[in-house]
């Protein structure tokens, strides 16, 4: 097994290389070079920067370098967790990301945990009632939810629950109320929770379909196996057979599918942060795209890809460690 783990870890290296290379190629070689646009929306329609200033910018950030050299430098810096500097405020990219990533990760993390908590029991129930109306109802409902685009759901929720003509239960925008800095900390936490309810709901419902489907399939597979017959023959109660013997074995593959949810979840977080104006990574993406802030964009893209990569890696390793039946030579 150690060999397998080592091999799996080694396989990360080419993928990491591919991620950085692709990110670099896409962003560095895109036609909209940062130096050309640094003037932003100046009085001359974006050409407010003089030729000298542009030259200086190009020099300062090494935009005229040979792409190979530039890539080497960038990756070399990445290895030391140096993501470069922002063009806009000259702060290190890593600091800008560090400020923002907490909110996004907690948002996506809460949504992921919540979707597991809801979807796994649904999937198990569907498997136990296979082919019955309950099964059908569950699969149609989660599939219906899966088909709702996240921004449609967000708009509908805002319309009906937050402000608008109907209920006004929850705040519409932001991560906190305006007067949050004056609140005592329990009040602050409560305020934050209120602000997070709608975003978390929007991020959760979409993952229900795939997780509940996996749980259902996994449970069905386990239910057909011999060791359950043995357990029943031993005289264990049906409850014990299902909730201890079967469930434990069914949960193993379910735990590992979370990695597959990550890319969609990150995409969803970007949209959600835009709609609810939350100061997370998504907002950083929009700001840096507008300013053509190259290194920030590259940093965000790389980090989100690496998070997904680590998710896959973690899932693979957990799978091997948890399931003693799997042997890799």
């Amino acid at each position, binding site marked *: 097994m150690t060999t397998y783990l080592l091999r799996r870890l080694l396989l990360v290296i080419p993928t990491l290389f*591919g*991620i950085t290379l692709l990110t670099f190629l896409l*962003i560095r070689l895109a036609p*909209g070079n940062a130096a050309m646009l640094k003037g932003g929306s100046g009085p001359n329609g974006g050409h407010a920067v003089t030729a000298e200033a542009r030259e200086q910018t190009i020099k300062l950030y090494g935009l005229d370098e040979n792409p190979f050299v530039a890539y080497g430098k960038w990756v070399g810096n990445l290895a030391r967790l140096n993501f470069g500097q922002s063009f806009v405020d000259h702060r290190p990219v890593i600091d800008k990301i560090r400020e923002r990533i907490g909110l996004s990760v907690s948002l996506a993390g809460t949504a992921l945990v919540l979707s597991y908590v809801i979807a796994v029991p649904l999937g198990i129930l569907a498997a136990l009632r296979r082919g019955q109306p309950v099964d059908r109802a569950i699969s149609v409902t989660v599939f219906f939810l899966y088909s709702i685009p996240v921004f*449609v759901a967000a*708009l509908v929720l805002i319309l009906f629950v937050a402000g608008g003509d109907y209920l006004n239960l929850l705040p519409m925008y932001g991560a906190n109320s305006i007067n949050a800095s004056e609140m005592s900390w329990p009040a602050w936490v409560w305020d934050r929770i209120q602000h997070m309810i709608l975003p978390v709901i929007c991020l959760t419902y979409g993952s229900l379909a795939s997780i509940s489907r996996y749980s259902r399939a996994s449970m069905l597979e386990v239910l057909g196996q011999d060791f359950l017959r043995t357990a029943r023959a031993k005289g264990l109660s049906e409850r014990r057979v299902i909730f201890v013997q079967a469930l434990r074995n069914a949960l193993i593959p379910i735990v590992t599918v979370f990695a597959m949810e990550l890319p969609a979840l990150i995409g969803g977080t*970007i949209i959600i942060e835009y709609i609810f104006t939350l100061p997370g990574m998504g907002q950083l993406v*929009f700001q840096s795209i507008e300013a053509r802030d190259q290194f920030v964009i590259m940093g965000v893209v790389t980090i*989100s890809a690496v998070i*997904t990569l680590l998710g896959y890696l973690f899932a693979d390793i957990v799978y091997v460690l948890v399931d003693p039946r799997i042997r890799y030579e």
Partner: protein
Amino acid sequence: MKSVIPMDETYAQRIWRLFKRDRFAFIGFCIVIVFFIVAALAPFLANDHAIVRVADGSVSFPVFRSLEPIEWRFLLYVPLAGLVYGFRGPLFLRVGRGLWIVAGVVLLIEFALFFHHSFNDVTNDRTLPAAFKLMPPIVYSPIETSPDQLVPPSWKHPCGTDSTGRDVAARLLHGARTSLAIGFISQSIALLVGVSVGGMAGYYRRWVDIVTCRFIEVMECFPTLLLILVVVSLCDAANNMIIIMVVIGLTGWTGVARLVRGEFLRLVGQPFPQAAQALGAGDLRIIVRHLLPNSLGPILVTATFGVASAILIESSLSFLGFGMQAPTPSWGDLLSEARKYIDFAWWLAFFPGAAILITIMSYNFVGEGLRDAVDPRLRVK
């Protein structure tokens, strides 16, 4: 009851029979067809030009004069697809000849469209007097502004108007074209890339397979939406339909590639490709004539889900302000405008939201039904 003898059915007939049994999938399929017809006929359903106008003793068809190339494409290609399907027997008796004929017709259409200049006709036939005129059901064009701003749904404007007085119903109908065109074309690109890459990996194995798998893994680590957002904005491609289609297509092929690779790995070991090889068939022939038709079912399933996700991505992009923008109507763009007036103008969000929801749900249900029909192992007993 009519009994079905399994051997009498072709593969396609069997899939169709199983597919029809799934009620949700069938309804979804019908909705997809209806949306297609709406998209193709949008200029005739919502326009300020009359379809037929008789005035001063002459008959004219004002709608046709204002059609843009994309509208002509919809009008010509959708029936063409129907014709090709209808005459697939004689046409594809010899596959090569059929393909040449189709390619010739497509080239002819494109050639004609290349020299076609759309005529920006600002006359409004609604108020123009005429001896006889046949107006479309919705008498407003999607880009026609009016002083009736933010009017709730009424008989005059069945879905209300937006902040510049444009008729939401007209914009919805025309927006169907943007969504469907982007969904289908980008998914075709994804299919083309995915089938070629996955097919090569599955057929040639060895280092081709290893490199492909690594590359797919790299691609799948990137959140698709983030990648598309960045590329589209850095290429200054917002509002450029072709680049948006290409970018969505080039990020969406990994699923297809994975699937085709798996199918090919499975099929190559079976006797029939080996028999073909023994008869002297080349690689290309084995892949295209023997392996591909045998993996068509699963490919179709992924493609259906792919269209749904492409439409979703396009509307997300427009919603975020990076996709097709006004005046071109697109459902996502309609919604992003609705966001500004969400407090009171519910109709702005409701109708486009429902359109996107229904479309995506239909495709997903069709995909589900197809999957069950194609793969009997997955079917719930």
